[in-house]
């Protein structure tokens, strides 16, 4: 009995150490990302994480002179897993929102996005709340697009997907009339073969969507180190070089 309780105490202590250990300067940083959000983060044919977010994260780690490892995590568990100490930072195209601020700390932005509808090219789509009433509109679960739809389009039939890819699949299959998503991600899909028959509809419904790195609360040093690193890669041209690999325009 005594041995058993010692064992449990050791397990609990080990768990606390793993969960609570703050990242110090020399410790390798663990970066969480989704890996299903091209071109920002994706898993390539070799099972390696790739994309703008991953490249930026690597550049930031180089600027901070720390070693980084990456952890792939499904989107709807990405904040809970950060809070549970599975990794130290989320670099996964996460928008700064008030709700998320309740749970995590954000760095400065590392790019800016907009939300924009896409639909079939030949479809006349009125993107007002009345225009989308009764239509099937999709977005990824736990994104600002998802909450934007639920908030501003109460009469639309909102369908939430595990990944952005699945929302596109249903748009292509005709189960959805429109998808609301990050303009840059939509841009990538519209330029792909699957998105050839689709186009942006209307003006962006939300602009100035700031994308930043999320960290567990109560670690201002780490926030500051990330901010300094973002400024550094902006200043020394590393950022612009990565940007150019993905978009022919500045997304900062």
């Amino acid at each position, binding site marked *: 009995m005594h041995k058993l309780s010692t064992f449990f105490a050791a397990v609990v202590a080990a768990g606390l150490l793993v969960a609570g250990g703050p990242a110090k300067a020399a410790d390798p940083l663990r970066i969480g990302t989704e890996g299903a959000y091209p071109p920002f983060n994706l898993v390539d044919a070799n099972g390696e994480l790739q994309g703008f977010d991953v490249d930026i994260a690597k550049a930031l780690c180089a600027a901070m002179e720390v070693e980084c490892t990456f952890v792939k995590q499904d989107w*709807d*568990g990405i*904040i*809970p897993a950060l*809070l549970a100490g599975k990794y130290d930072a989320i670099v996964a195209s996460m928008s700064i929102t008030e*709700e*998320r601020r*309740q*749970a995590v700390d954000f760095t400065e932005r590392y790019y800016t996005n907009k939300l924009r509808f896409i639909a079939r090219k030949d479809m006349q789509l009125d993107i007002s709340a009345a225009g989308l009433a009764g239509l099937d509109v*999709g977005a990824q*679960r*736990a994104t600002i697009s*998802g*909450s934007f739809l639920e908030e501003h389009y109460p009469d639309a039939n909102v*369908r*939430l*997907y*595990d990944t952005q890819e*699945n929302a596109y*699949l*249903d748009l292509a*299959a*005709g*189960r959805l009339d429109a998808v609301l998503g990050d303009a840059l991600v939509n841009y990538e899909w519209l330029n792909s073969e699957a998105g050839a028959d689709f186009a942006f509809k209307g003006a962006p419904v939300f602009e100035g969507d700031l994308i930043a790195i999320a960290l567990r609360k109560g670690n201002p040093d780490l926030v500051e180190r990330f901010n300094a690193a973002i400024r550094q890669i902006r200043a020394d041209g590393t950022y612009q070089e990565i940007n150019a690999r993905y978009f022919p325009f500045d997304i900062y």
Partner: protein
Amino acid sequence: MDLRLMVDSLPQLLLGMLATLELVALSGALGVVLAVPVALARVSPRAWVRAAPLGYIFFLRGTPLLVQIFLVYYGLGQFETVRESVLWPVLREAYWCAIIAFTLNTSAYTAEILRGAIQAVPPGEVEAARALGMSHALTLRRVVLPRAVRMALPAYGNEVILMVKGSALASTITLLDLTGMARTIIAKTYKPLEIFLAAGLLYLLITLVITRLIRRAETHLSTTANPRPKGRP
């Protein structure tokens, strides 16, 4: 632990639970209807009839339910011919895709449970029925199936419980079943512990009720089928 949040989320979770129950009840009923002919084919004296459902059962028992759901939902939707067919209004809906996948899946398991039970009916009872002049169909209806159903019931109870838990996969195709609802609430609150705990308790409640119902059905069937002789200890 945010107990307040658990209580506040309850109305939404109960809505999700209702959706889960509906999915399980409908696909379970359709699954049984499909399973009976499949099971009867499996015990046919003719070899070619016996072989017919083998591929069906092999495929549905040998692949993950998630893969089957994705094949029905995302897979079929890829084909232009499917999208232009008369079936599209049904296959377009995530709800019906889930019902189709769950029905096919459970029908394969139920058919195998039923086959085992039919084969366990004592041959003497079948011979006695035939000796009384009952036709093959009548023997099946009056003797074999009632006996088999009684024997299959405990195993079928397991299958229903597995189905309740498997139905959580409906959340992967946008349905707001109990799991889907929980995930949607977590997306807003970032409190997976509380919400999944509450959802887990509701799943427990469902399986508890189902276990009770199956047990009651077992006692009911055994007492009506073998009434105790009165007046003797």
